[in-house]
């Protein structure tokens, strides 16, 4: 199975480097005669159609998300953004297209499969099952740090045993995936930080698969959650880009005996020990900071989402996430306190990583 995945990975890279239809490099075929509003209508229709088809097909694996063509509306929204960068509808639509079109990437797909098969997504310490491949992820699981340590464990095992594969992944992540995630984050942050009247993004009935249903609206509560997901994803991918596995010597390190995640006493020291014995990449310090900051920012975004929900004063009957009677301000406040405690634990947990990065000398 590992050989098959390696072949897939190499084939995917071959396809990428030799590929002539790379969506990033391909010029968007935009009709210059169309007005801004016409182009926006076309983009919205394209986005609505993709969402509608997504609501009709049963997705059993995150890899299937790649079957839905978010690249077409993404190109249109990119053109719209270049014309009017302050259009919030466009920024949110573009952010979601950039986030969801990640799954069309063949290497990202293989990466997801590997994470899933190695149990990274099997977070035990959670109220409901989690799959990072689906958005939004489970807040409780992120706060548990289990997924982060599982990813770190897998990364070290993979890097020690198959350094060439991980080097390929690192290059691809840094040049292709992480920039796209960063663009998506930037678009969400533009809307989150905007001032004035509350902005809401409409999810139409057609998008949900029932055209006659009235629209439901997303606001900062949802934008911050998607932002948190993307920060988390960028953090994990950046963690993969810290270590120079090719020039590191793993002699004497039994990567298979790394201790499993202990929810009662999460500890990063065993992994830190390994990282102390290896060399970092030339950009490892930068990527390490992105990893640490991404973990913290992800939790901060969850807190921002909760704070925004708590501060809302409308009746919210058509909001996607509602402040319903069971989610009173007091309960939200309790959740905020839980998340803040989680943030404090995370800062404590990642403190040694930051210290290692600050004191690292090649």
């Amino acid at each position: 199975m590992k050989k098959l995945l390696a072949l897939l990975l190499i084939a995917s890279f071959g396809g990428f480097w030799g590929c002539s239809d790379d969506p990033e490099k391909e010029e968007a075929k935009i009709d210059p005669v169309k007005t801004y509003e016409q182009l926006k209508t076309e983009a919205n229709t394209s986005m609505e159609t993709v969402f509608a088809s997504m609501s009709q097909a049963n997705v059993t694996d995150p890899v299937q998300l790649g079957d839905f063509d978010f690249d077409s509306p993404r190109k249109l929204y990119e053109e719209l953004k270049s014309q009017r960068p302050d259009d919030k509808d466009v920024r949110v639509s573009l952010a979601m297209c950039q986030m969801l079109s990640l799954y069309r990437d063949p290497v990202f797909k293989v990466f997801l499969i590997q994470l899933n098969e190695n149990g990274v997504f099997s977070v035990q310490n959670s109220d409901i099952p989690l799959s990072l491949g689906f958005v939004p992820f489970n807040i409780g699981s992120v706060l548990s740090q289990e997924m982060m340590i599982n990813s770190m464990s897998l990364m070290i095992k993979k890097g020690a045993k198959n350094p060439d594969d991980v080097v390929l992944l690192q290059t691809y992540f840094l040049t292709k995936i992480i920039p796209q995630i960063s663009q998506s984050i930037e678009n969400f942050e533009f809307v989150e930080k905007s001032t004035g009247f509350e902005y809401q993004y409409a999810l139409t009935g057609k998008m949900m698969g029932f055209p006659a249903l009235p629209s439901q609206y997303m606001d900062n509560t949802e934008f911050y959650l998607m932002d948190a997901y993307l920060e988390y994803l960028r953090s994990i991918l950046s963690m993969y880009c810290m270590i120079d596995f090719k020039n590191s010597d793993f002699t004497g390190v039994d990567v298979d005996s790394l201790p499993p995640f202990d929810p009662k006493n999460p500890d990063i020291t065993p992994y830190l020990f390994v990282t102390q014995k290896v060399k970092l990449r030339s950009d490892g310090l930068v990527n390490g900071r992105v990893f640490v900051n991404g973990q913290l920012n992800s939790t901060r975004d969850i807190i921002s989402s909760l704070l925004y929900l708590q501060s809302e004063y409308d009746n919210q009957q058509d909001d996607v996430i509602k402040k319903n009677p069971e989610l009173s301000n007091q309960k939200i406040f309790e959740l905020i306190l839980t998340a803040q405690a989680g943030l404090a634990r995370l800062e404590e947990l990642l403190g040694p990583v930051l210290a290692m990065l600050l004191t690292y000398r090649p």
Partner: protein
Amino acid sequence: MRSDNISWSHVFYRFGGNLFVRFLRVTFLVPVLLSFTFPSVFAQSSLSFSTDNTLLYHEKSSRQAWDIWFTESKLNAGFQIRKIPVSLTLIHQTDYLSFSNFQQNQTFTLENKSELFSTELTFQWDRFKIQPSGSLTFGNNSTKPGAALLLTVNINPAFSVFGETKFRHRAYSHTWQVDDSKPEFSQWAAITEFKGGFLWHLNSGSALSGWFQQGKSKISGHNQTFREQGSYQNQEGKFSFRSGLAKSWFIQSDGRFYSGQGQPEWLYKNFPFSGIESGKVTSHLFNAGLTKDITENWNLGGGVTYREMSLQSGGLLQSFPFTPAVIALIGDYYFFSIDGIIRIPGLNLETTYKADNWGSARFSIGWQRARPKLKIQTWEPLFFLIGRKNERNTPFSYQYADIIPLEIDISWNVNGVIIGLDASQLIPVHAVKKAAKTSGGSGSGAPVKSNSGKTVWGGTEVKLSALYTF
């Protein structure tokens, strides 16, 4: 998770159960009960009592139990005050639906029992072309007493070309309930209903009659933990034709249809947790046959029948009334889609005997083949309200079932009191499953004892009535 028994049965009781019972009433009882009751005339004072009991389905085994039944009892007094016909009716109505699952020393029960005690007072001025009428109901729906007012206007245009022609318009309904020991406006229904009927005598032996009704209603209210609101539309109608042929033969045919649709919205503590695109129920019934008068008091008849009923609905439910707040935060939505239809062609034979001195008796037997198609899908969104994951399809395993319907109606005249007994029973004789295509006797109907100890009964209706006219 809260106690499953309490929360889910509460919800089922309030919403799922009521909706399902409504569907059952529409699909099974409305075609039976619909009749040409219009126009209603209170020519004389009368006193009547009737009780209608329907056991739709009962099943009990070591694993699970089902019970679905309805009863309705009415005591009615009709009289006149200053030539204005008035009717006072005491009504007791019970709808009961229960499902129990017995698992490893634990019993999980979903139960819906809706009970209504009410007193209905109706009146009608009959001296004008436009007849205002109304009804005032004092009742106890479930646990809360209340009152409802319904105003109706009947219009009788003198269109001789249409023979007897009537139009009726009901336009207003208001319901109050007593809550926390004080009367409060709790629910209102804005009803706009139109009903028109006709009776044409084509010649001395032929007549064509029918009616059509179209209604719209909007239900709203407040002050209940779980409640329903929404807008609904319905259309229903009937036509019948009867004509005499040579040598005491008669031909008759009739058709009925019902179509109801609406967008119900369910609320918990006045906060909506559902989005139903639309719910639609339809029912069509067609009969055609020949009757032969054997003697002056005895006739024989037979014919073909066709009945078709369908249900479509879809939308989403949010789980926040039943799940911890943390799960509710991430938008815990469940989508569903239901699409079902049942087609029942059949044959029918019946005989009626009428005796002037004591009453009449009617016996009917038939054969029906029920062909159901049912598709139920549920799924969860991938991403807030978008996408589909964890899709589940619930297949319906039966291809068709053969049923014998039996009916007997007897009417006695005992010293001026007319006593009636109407009884019917559906008997399943053969069922074919889709995959295995095996035969068996399961389904509603006469009791079946299988090897697993399962007892099944259903499809039974017994109606008793008494009428005395002064």
